[in-house]
């Protein structure tokens, strides 16, 4: 039997250069942080099983699973709506990886491991919304897209999951973006172009925002 050695790489490792991009000499208006090494499981209810799945999710996460375009923060996971009767589970350190979620939702849901299939980008800064407004047709004003709002949408013709996480200590909004790994580099460059006029602070992190 062939032996395999898997080493995971960020889909953005060639595109991401830490530091400042675009406008300099003033505080960067946009902060882009790629989050690396996360667990992401797509959970899709089986036919007629949504109510049962929702109960099982409540037991496991101690919060109600999203039944509409919202992202719900649990103790050690974020549950992000991704369509009718389905949501994503974002977590770290194997707490809610495939091998633990599969038995918990056995018979109720179909699960698909997306951990290495998506890139996760956290967008913040005073001009974050201005940058996103160039790429997305969604209204991201706080009155319409508050903390916990989520959207399955298209950004620059690329399918993406966008949700607003908890605000930063200084009150600034944080937008989180999941994008297919193979489209991540393209969207990354598009965001660099869109945000260059505001200055972009580029980092990566191992911590979920």
């Amino acid at each position, binding site marked *: 039997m062939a032996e395999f050695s898997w080493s995971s790489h960020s889909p953005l490792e060639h595109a991401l250069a830490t530091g400042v991009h675009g406008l300099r000499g003033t505080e960067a208006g946009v902060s882009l942080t790629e989050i690396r090494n996360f667990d992401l499981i797509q959970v*899709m*209810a*089986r*036919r*007629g*099983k*949504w*109510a049962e799945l929702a109960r099982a999710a409540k037991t496991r996460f101690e919060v109600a699973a999203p039944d*509409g*375009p919202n992202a719900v923060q649990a103790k050690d996971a974020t549950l992000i709506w*991704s*369509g*009718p*009767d*389905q949501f994503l589970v974002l977590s770290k350190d194997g707490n809610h990886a495939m091998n633990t979620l599969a038995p918990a939702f056995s018979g109720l849901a179909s699960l698909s491991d997306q951990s290495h299939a998506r890139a996760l980008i956290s967008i913040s800064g005073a001009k974050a919304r201005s940058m996103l407004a160039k790429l997305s*047709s969604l209204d991201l004003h706080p009155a319409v897209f508050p903390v916990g709002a989520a*959207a*399955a*949408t*298209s950004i620059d*013709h690329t*399918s993406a999951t966008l949700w607003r996480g908890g605000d930063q200590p200084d009150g600034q909004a944080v937008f989180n973006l999941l994008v297919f790994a193979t489209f991540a580099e393209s969207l990354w460059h598009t965001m660099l172009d869109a945000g260059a006029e505001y200055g972009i602070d580029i980092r990566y992190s191992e911590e979920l925002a």
Partner: protein
Amino acid sequence: MRIVCPFCGERELGEFTYLGDAKPQRPAADAGEDAVYDYVYLRDNVAGVMSEHWYHGGGCRSWLKITRNTLTHEISSVEPAAGVGAAKVGV
């Protein structure tokens, strides 16, 4: 043109794909060749209110049944197509 997805809310047209007339029903297995031919190929060219299937592929990936006036693009109703979402089987 914007479409109010019953799951996602108001979204731009670019997130949706048009399938076409939602009226044709698949004929029974023994209905004969003419009925199948009609079902697969023949469509009315409606000038006015029409029931259509649209796919929200750039969003929640749900099939929708939309009532649209082809003359004015006015959309009078948007609902999930039958079977959309695991909890909504047979709707």
